[in-house]
């Protein structure tokens, strides 16, 4: 950039942002990826919301509104965990990572690029889902600063934790083709046992609830219910309260676990490359 000698290596943050711009360009240019990434959780929300309909749970809250709050958690997991898991496995498979490894691009810039990609796609996903939920199921957006704050930190911790887990699970997939199968199983299973599709969560067998409580989706869904539903609905949670302190604790713990898993398992090369 400058005429000063000797030329210095470009700094990391602008490179990371440039990678983010490139990732977004690639993402929005592959139309099937865009359509299906955004459509899957939204279509499920519309279908299941219509099936449950206006059946009133309590206090004027409908089943579809309870579902919508939980589906936002699932939407986050879809654009972070599932998308990143398959995307990075793809980068490993098609030579992206190998090519980057042969350049002076720092690894941090690659991950900043993925963070930018995930941040933009996840926000877009949530906007789409909230719009549908508000329009079709009369979900009301939070009206206090406190609820918005809760929304913000549940969203942030959920995105970071699930993204890190997505990066980690990408190393488990031997090829890009197996990656979508590898990520879909935990994604779908966790939705079923975490009180996303089945509400209230206490209607599930205790063993499943206990299992779900070890993973982030249950806590994200619970956090979002506390934001979008009246506080009286807390009575339907396993503890009878929103347990926001525990939501923060478990999601925070998964951020740490995810980071450790990433640092210990990330591979630049394909599994079969020896």
């Amino acid at each position: 950039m400058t005429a000063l000698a000797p030329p210095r290596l470009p700094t990391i943050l602008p490179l990371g942002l440039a990678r983010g711009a490139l990732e977004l360009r690639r993402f929005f240019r592959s139309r099937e990826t865009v359509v299906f990434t955004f459509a899957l959780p939204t279509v499920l929300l519309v279908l299941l919301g219509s099936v449950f309909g206006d059946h009133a749970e309590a206090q004027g809250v409908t089943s579809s509104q309870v579902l919508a709050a939980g589906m936002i958690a699932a939407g986050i997991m879809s654009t972070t965990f599932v998308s990143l898991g398959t995307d990075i496995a793809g980068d490993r498979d098609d030579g992206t990572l190998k090519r980057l490894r042969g350049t002076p691009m720092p690894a941090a810039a690659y991950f900043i690029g993925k963070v930018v990609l995930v941040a933009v796609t996840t926000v877009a996903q949530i906007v789409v889902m909230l719009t549908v939920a508000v329009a079709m199921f009369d979900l009301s957006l939070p009206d206090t600063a406190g609820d918005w704050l809760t929304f913000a930190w549940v969203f942030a911790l959920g995105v970071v934790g699930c993204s890190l887990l997505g990066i980690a699970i990408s190393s488990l997939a031997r090829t890009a083709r197996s990656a979508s199968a590898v990520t879909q199983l935990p994604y779908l299973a966790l939705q079923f046992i975490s009180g996303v599709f089945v509400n209230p969560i206490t209607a599930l067998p205790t063993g499943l609830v206990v299992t779900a409580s070890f993973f982030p989706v249950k806590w994200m869904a619970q956090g979002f219910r506390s934001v979008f539903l009246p506080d009286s609905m807390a009575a339907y949670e396993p503890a009878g309260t929103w347990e926001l302190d525990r939501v923060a604790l478990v999601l925070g713990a998964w951020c740490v676990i995810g980071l450790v898993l990433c640092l210990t398992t990330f591979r630049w090369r394909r599994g079969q490359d020896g």
Partner: protein
Amino acid sequence: MTDAAISVRGLRKRYRGSRRPAVDGVDLDVARGEVVALLGPNGAGKTTTVEILEGHRDRDDGEVAVLGTDPADGGRTWRARIGVVTQSATDLLELTPAEAVRHFARYYPDPRDPDEVLELVGLADAPRAVVKLSGGQRRRLDVALGIVGRPELLFLDEPTTGFDPQARRDFWRLVRALAAEGTTILLTTHYLEEAEVLADRLTVITDGVVVAEGSPATLAGRQSRPALVGWLEDGRPRTEATATPSALVAALGQHFGGEVPGLSVRRPSLEDVYLELLSAAAPEPALATAGGAR
């Protein structure tokens, strides 16, 4: 040390679960500004060697210095000085060549002008998405991304596999232009004609060991090999190797009383020498008995 681009002594690498080492004590020297081709059959250890030099792989043993640095410790500054063109990448599909080259230029402290690079590799008029490029154009994009950082040392791993003859010749012109600018190039290839055209020096590897080294004209004593004289006798082709081809041709002329049918005189091609080297270096167990007389 500073005038050697690559210096390798006793390089060894064995993959997990494999009984034979992939690279078993390779020595290799490449001077600055030199173009060196690594030749050898599939599985000989060429790509493993190159990937260790690029810093893509660990080694088990040996001393390696690439631009004076051990690739295992090569940081960003070192990577900015090398260019790597690996085999078979299928990434960047949604971008155009220009977007890809401009983006990769940002990684380097002193990149070439992306438009000049596109011009140089002949992709200036290819505004289409990478996914629509032909195999040859795709490979030229790989080279563009490998040279955009103005590397002192360029690794080309089987760069022209799958090219048609015209594309191969265009590619050779590009590589020679880079070499003329002073870029040191380490090339692996299966095409002996390519090695002969491009390389100052050849190194033949088989079973992880260097079996021959030399210039294309003198590899394995090629220049002093007997000439091969061929002709037709009773409608059947005959060949004879001789150190004195003129005398043999004169004798044949007398024998036939004039024109010798189907006469040809040639020196062993690089391919002849190369194939001989391979069969001498690593005879297949079944062939070793059959061809034992050689």
